[in-house]
């Protein structure tokens, strides 16, 4: 194992901002910042209030654009995967996060803070299958290693 491209300060600052976002949404609106739930609620789920969800997603795009513009080096995209993999990955992530009621934000950032046993089980599971998937692709199939 070799450690590469480690950027702890940018990671920590980004993490604190994400934590601040989740805190603000719960404190002001009483909502959990769970991206998969917000996306589904803004699009495929019937009923419910769609306006705040679309505005949250608009903010997400605006915030990313602002960071890419202001922070040198933050705008980077590196991938060895051909584009169809992104489509298939999106399908699996979309279906999986709905079946499992959350993703890295809902179960990870918010669920762990609420000490939810469901979220702890979810995070342990998706970390494990994520690590396993990368191991299979990079070290067994030899793609992108």
């Amino acid at each position, binding site marked *: 194992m070799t450690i590469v491209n480690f950027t702890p300060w940018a990671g920590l600052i980004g993490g604190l901002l994400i934590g601040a976002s989740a805190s603000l949404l719960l404190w002001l609106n009483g909502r959990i910042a769970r991206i998969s739930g917000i996306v589904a609620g803004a699009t495929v789920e019937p009923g419910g209030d769609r306006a705040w969800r679309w505005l949250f997603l608009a903010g997400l795009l605006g915030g990313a654009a602002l960071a890419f513009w202001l922070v040198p080096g933050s705008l980077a995209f590196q*991938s060895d995967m051909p584009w169809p993999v992104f489509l298939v990955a*999106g399908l699996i992530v979309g279906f999986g996060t709905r079946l499992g009621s959350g993703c890295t934000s809902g179960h990870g950032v918010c669920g762990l803070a609420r000490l939810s046993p469901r979220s702890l089980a979810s995070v342990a599971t998706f970390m494990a299958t994520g*690590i396993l998937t990368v191991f299979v692709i990079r070290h067994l199939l030899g793609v992108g290693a």
Partner: protein
Amino acid sequence: MKKNIAALIAGLLFGLGLAISQMTNPAKVLNFLDITGTWDPTLAFVMGGAVLVTLISFRFILKQDRPLFEGQFHLPTRSDIDGRLLGGAALFGIGWGLAGYCPGPGIAALVMGLWEPALFVVGLLVGMWGFRRLPPVG
């Protein structure tokens, strides 16, 4: 109105955080998951930094009777660990490990104007739509 502005600002902070920490770069995420190869621990600092804040702030926030701009808190109430939760998380992890994107970074990366994030988000929406089309279970 106030809660819509609050959601916009929360989204803005979230997007800033994801982009500053470069979670919008698939290689950062895949290297984090590659613990036996080229490991990049950054994602643990992103997650750790976020949970550090929420672990403290949620204590205080949830002691309030209600949020500032809404009548009540909208919190998950279930505590049982079932096959759907674990199966969904397992699938999500596989998709995450394939492309290096979870929903937030995939959507934030749309502003790069590249094909890959756009296709990921198309897949994401179709996958969510497909789940809705399934008959309800138990």
